[in-house]
């Protein structure tokens, strides 16, 4: 019976005899950054990020599920499951029904268990007027996540508004990418020296929220006001906001005292504009903005200048290329490749811990988001934030849409003095600030 069963489902089975060819299940290797995430991810360090879109109307869950059912099979980058090989993890086409869309009822960025999610590595939830997309970082970075949630939102709006569907049809937007190139390998040049810092940074400590709790604080501000302020300091918005964060840590944690340990902020840099890539896989690299409080009583302007200098010298095409070339060279090393996965995992975990503790926090900027014109009137705002990692108990995420910039603090620290100092700096620079939280700090 066993032999008959295997014959029935193999290529020599009746279906083949009937002339119907069974398509081989598509598979793909992980990109260089993605190899790390399955190794380090767990309940406490989920490596899940969330991108939300707030509409101007209540979400209809059946339509959202239908939209996901329609979009997912065409998005190769999300229609995947993670498999464990003997030497490497890899992706395989999933092919199951789309994950169930449920109302949000727990804390954000929780670990995604593939076995209870139809083997998918992302989840879609909703609450009130908001659609949430949570993605395990192994799939893609923020740009890839935006690509997906934007298309999902378009599809949802077309289902909710028949006039949109009649006007626009049912095809993907021209701005949606389906490219699956491994841009790391394509643009890798030669082996270079390690560019990552490994000296331990100043780590923020403090009482944490209860186990499993996760604090989110969105700080909304008019984009034109923050542009004006940044210009006044002769800095970009990113540099200004990173400096505000560093300043808050310097004031509230170091109490403006000198410290041997640097406050180092990991800033992921999107490599696509530098290398002309439209890939939907991960394609980013981390640089570190560093501030060492050598003296007492720095002013905010002084901190900002130091941060600007630190970022300027790192965000050049050549330096970024050197940084990722080092990692890619390690991945492609002919002696490293046949090392069994469990040994590779142990090594990667060790390297990751060292580099994670070399940063105080992370600030990621997913940029100024745009949507296709017919959908603009239905979309109110975008939000994004990231989960915690080793030694980093508070992080920042920047995104802007329609003239409003949202800086989101995600944290497992109970104290909000860093966020308070951050807002104080913005207000003192003349920026109008609104705050929205997930209720953790008020309970």
């Amino acid at each position, binding site marked *: 019976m066993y032999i008959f069963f*295997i014959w029935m489902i193999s290529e020599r089975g009746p279906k083949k005899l009937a002339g119907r060819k069974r398509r081989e299940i598509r598979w793909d290797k992980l990109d260089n950054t993605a190899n790390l995430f399955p190794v380090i991810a767990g309940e406490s360090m989920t490596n899940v990020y969330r991108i939300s879109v707030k509409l101007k109307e209540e979400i209809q869950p059946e339509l959202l599920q239908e939209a996901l059912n329609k979009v997912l099979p065409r998005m190769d980058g999300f229609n995947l499951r993670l498999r464990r090989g003997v030497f490497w993890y890899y992706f395989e086409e999933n092919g199951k029904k789309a994950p169930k869309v449920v109302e949000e009822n727990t804390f954000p960025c929780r670990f995604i268990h593939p076995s209870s999610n139809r083997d998918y590595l992302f989840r879609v939830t909703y609450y009130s007027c908001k659609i949430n997309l949570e993605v395990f970082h192994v799939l893609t970075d923020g740009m890839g996540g935006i690509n997906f949630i934007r298309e999902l939102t378009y599809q949802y709006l077309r289902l909710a508004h028949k006039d949109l569907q009649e006007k626009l049809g049912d095809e993907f937007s021209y701005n949606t990418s389906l490219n699956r190139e491994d841009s790391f390998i394509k643009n890798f040049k030669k082996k270079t020296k390690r560019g990552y810092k490994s000296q331990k940074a100043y780590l923020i400590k403090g009482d944490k929220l209860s186990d499993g709790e996760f604090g989110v604080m969105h700080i909304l501000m008019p984009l034109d006001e923050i542009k004006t302020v940044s210009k006044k300091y002769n800095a970009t918005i990113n540099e200004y906001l990173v400096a505000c964060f560093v300043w808050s840590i310097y004031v509230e944690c170091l109490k403006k005292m000198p410290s041997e340990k640097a406050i180092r902020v990991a800033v992921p840099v999107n490599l696509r504009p530098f290398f002309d890539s439209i890939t939907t896989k991960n394609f980013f690299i981390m640089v570190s903005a560093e501030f060492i409080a050598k003296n007492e009583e720095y002013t905010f302007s002084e901190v900002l200048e130091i941060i600007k200098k630190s970022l300027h010298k790192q965000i050049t095409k050549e330096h970024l290329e050197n940084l990722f070339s080092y990692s890619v060279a390690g991945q492609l090393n002919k002696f490293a490749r046949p090392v069994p996965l469990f040994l590779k995992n142990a090594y990667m975990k060790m390297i990751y811990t060292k580099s994670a503790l070399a940063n105080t926090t992370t600030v990621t900027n997913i940029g100024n988001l745009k949507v296709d014109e017919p959908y603009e009137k239905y979309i109110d705002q975008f939000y994004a934030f990231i989960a915690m990692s080793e030694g980093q108990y508070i992080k920042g995420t920047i995104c802007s849409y329609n003239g409003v910039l949202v800086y989101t603090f995600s944290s497992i620290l109970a104290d909000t003095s860093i966020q308070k100092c951050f807002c104080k700096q913005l207000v003192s620079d003349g920026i109008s600030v609104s705050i929205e939280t997930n209720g953790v700090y*008020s309970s």
Partner: protein
Amino acid sequence: MQENIQNGKFGGKMARCKKCNVEILDDTDRCPLCNLILEKNDTPISNLYPIDAIEITRRFRVFSNILLFLSIVLQTFCFWLDYSINGRKIMWSIIVGMVVVYVNVILRLTIMGKSGYLFKIVGIFFIALGMCVCSDFVMGYKGWSLEYVFPIVILVLDLIIVILMLANRRNWQSYIMIQLFQVVLGVVLVTLGVFGEIKWVVLINVSTAVSIFLFLGTVIIGDKRAKTELKRRFHI
């Protein structure tokens, strides 16, 4: 609109913190930054996040903590009783301890755990096997765990794998690696038998042979799909 008010989605009115000079868009009477009582205005706001997320998480934690506490109490009592009766020659309480550990691990793995069904099934059997081997050693190593229990577990797992392949026809090739693992285990046991570490090897030889034939059958008759699966699993 009425439903939203009942569900707390249109929570309340927007407020301003005079101290921080920021607008608070949450439904709260305290500033999340400085805890000052807020001055509310008439602009209605809606909650961006569910208000009951906190409660659900805390309830789940309490249940798993109660289970752990009861297990510790039970095992401490058994240990004390064994020591009172048998003095330093403690034996049955270690067996009870292993059972308690097994129950806790199995409950956490199967009910609370979120890993896949294959991992749970294999986990249950191999943890039980581990407990049996430990028991055998605690009772002075008679060899029954390796001569009887181990091969029976392998045979049962082989049967379960065949059933799973039938049930999950779309991805039958996914079970090839667990078959290979069983072959390797079987070969290790046979090798121990050859070197005289295991006395009675009949059942071990039978279970190893079944595992090898199952694996070979899957690869040979499964043809391209099986070979593709192996190629992907072993890709360098």
